């Protein structure tokens, strides 16, 4: 049926692959780092945690150099349209490497992880593998590549969630994550197969051209959209695909929770934006084409549901990790608003919002880790009177929470401002969406502020245990994150410009 390629054809395939490698250097570098970490772990037999974490952090920092070099290359497709290199992908490469470094930092801080796990083993290697997977998610331009990279992120995330093998909560979190993840990726692949049936293509740019040229059956397209959104929605943790997130966030080791809540969520946004903007035809005018309209209305429903559900259910939470899980559902709703605006301003706003979320959410989890090192608990009740015992951590947590609410002068405020102004710039159609966003932010003020309330205004029942003070490194770590959160809330121009440059995507048709 299919003939074997001739010698000349094979030569040309090899030549294409060789030119592609030049555009793939950061990923190759990270893969080498991944294997190096496994070898180092085998040599030291998991005894020298500090060596492993230092190699990981420095190795990830080294990746910045290779990513920076890629700015010189021209944007384009490589590996037969499987993979693209453009400003959008580069933004997420920086983003994920940074989130990996921060994840290593918070992992070092966590006593529970380092005490319960006798040999840290491949933990750091898995973090690097997840960075690779997320980078590939942001750069893939083919349904096959999207599926593979999402599975790479998913499989590493399941293992990381269950890393505390003897802790029932961690095991339960891993099981739930696995079941929901496996089902939603199965649904997504079925949706991909329908798209493939409609167009006979797997490259998203060709799919878009094919759909625009030959049309499609609206019913099949709707079904495929729903199924594919199940996969993407699961990654970003939006309602109604959120069921895993509270249990996984509570059960997983806290550093892993911090990493998942920013890394894997942002990767989901990257792949969702690329798919929605590139593969779905939007007609000459936005809002004209049926497929684009279907997706838009689905996204609007998901976004509203996430904002309301996340913020309202968070009101009753007693566990801080669980509270932050619900808050992260709500934040997925806010970031979706920028995608709904469907223009350059909206993309820029979403990218900026994700950057802000990286800083403030990792920061908040960092402080939660330091507090649980001291009290051994993540319950809201046990935060009483901590503001006096841990002044810096208390102040930092307050700043991060103010930023999560979206009050000035923090990066969270600028992020929300950008999102809402992108919506309002579209005219009067989306005013009500922005209104819902503002109102739900007001609700969120209550539950976020419960934490500082307990820390500063309520007295602790227990006497001071007088445990050892937090290490100097971590004091500096949270101080830096806190200062950055405020600094970029005041001097946001460079980040905003960076996000604006990064909003250009290869093969984009909508703006």
């Amino acid at each position, binding site marked *: 049926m299919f003939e074997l390629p001739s010698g000349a054809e094979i030569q040309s395939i090899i030549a294409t692959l060789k030119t592609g490698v030049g555009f793939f250097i950061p990923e190759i570098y990270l893969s080498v780092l991944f294997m190096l970490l496994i070898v180092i772990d085998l040599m030291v037999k998991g005894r020298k945690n500090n060596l492993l974490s230092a190699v990981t952090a420095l190795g990830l920092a080294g990746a910045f150099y290779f990513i920076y070099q890629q700015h010189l290359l021209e944007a384009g497709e490589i590996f037969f349209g499987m993979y693209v290199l453009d400003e959008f992908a580069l933004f997420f490469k920086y983003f994920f490497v940074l989130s990996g470094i921060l994840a290593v930092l918070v992992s070092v801080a966590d006593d529970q992880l380092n005490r319960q796990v006798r040999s840290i083993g491949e933990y750091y290697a898995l973090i690097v593998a997840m960075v690779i997977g997320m980078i590939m998610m942001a750069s893939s331009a083919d349904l096959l590549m999207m*599926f593979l990279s999402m599975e790479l992120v998913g499989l590493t995330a399941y293992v990381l969630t269950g890393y505390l093998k003897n802790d029932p909560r961690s095991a339960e979190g891993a*099981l739930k994550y696995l079941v929901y993840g496996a089902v939603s990726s*199965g649904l997504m692949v079925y949706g991909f*197969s329908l798209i493939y049936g409609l167009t006979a293509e797997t490259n998203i740019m060709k799919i878009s051209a094919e759909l625009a040229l030959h049309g499609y059956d609206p019913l099949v397209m709707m079904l495929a959209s729903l199924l594919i959104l199940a996969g993407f929605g699961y990654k970003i943790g939006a309602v109604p695909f959120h069921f895993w997130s509270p249990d996984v966030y509570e059960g997983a080791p806290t550093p892993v929770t911090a990493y998942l809540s920013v890394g894997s969520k942002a990767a989901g946004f990257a792949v969702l934006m690329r798919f929605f903007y590139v593969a779905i035809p939007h007609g000459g005018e936005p809002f004209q084409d049926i497929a684009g309209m279907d997706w838009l209305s689905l996204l609007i429903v998901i976004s509203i549901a996430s904002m309301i559900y996340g913020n309202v259910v968070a009101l009753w939470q007693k*566990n801080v990790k669980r509270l932050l899980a619900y808050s992260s559902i709500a934040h997925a709703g806010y970031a979706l608003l920028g995608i709904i605006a469907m223009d350059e301003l909206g993309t820029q706003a979403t990218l900026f919002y994700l950057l802000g979320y990286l800083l403030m959410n990792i920061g908040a989890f960092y402080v939660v880790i330091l507090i649980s090192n001291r009290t051994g608990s993540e319950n809201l009740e046990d935060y009483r009177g901590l503001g006096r015992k841990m002044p810096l951590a208390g102040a930092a947590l307050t700043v991060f929470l103010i930023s999560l609410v979206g009050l000035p002068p923090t990066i969270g405020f600028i992020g929300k401002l950008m999102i809402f102004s992108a919506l309002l710039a579209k005219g009067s159609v989306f005013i009500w969406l922005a209104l819902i966003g503002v109102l739900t932010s007001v609700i969120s003020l209550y539950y976020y502020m419960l934490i500082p309330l307990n820390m500063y205004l309520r007295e602790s029942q227990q006497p001071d245990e007088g445990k050892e003070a937090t290490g100097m490194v971590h004091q500096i770590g949270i101080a830096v994150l806190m200062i950055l959160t405020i600094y970029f809330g005041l001097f946001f121009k460079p980040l905003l410009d960076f996000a604006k440059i990064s909003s250009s995507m290869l093969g984009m048709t909508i703006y």
Partner: protein
Amino acid sequence: MELITNIGLNHFLTISALLFGFGLFAVMTRKNAIVILMGVELILNAANINFLAFSKFNGGMEGVMFSLFVIVLAAAEAAIALAIVINIYKIFRSVDVSSIDTMKE
């Protein structure tokens, strides 16, 4: 009669839709973690049949490639899933997902 003797695209799609339905049914109604994972396998294989059928009738090799990768990833996922389920069994002495629900507000 022709409908029965000539196997066309619709036959494949019907089978795959049935498989998908059974898989989804298993995932939603069963309580045993292993059976849920079996349901997921059914969903993945339904997608595989779709890919192969479309590849045969639309032309092009992408569908064949896609289904090969799906098979490999299903195996990888099963390995990790079973490891997690074994760990669950060690701790809870059960793989019933409705009884493994200790974290609730």
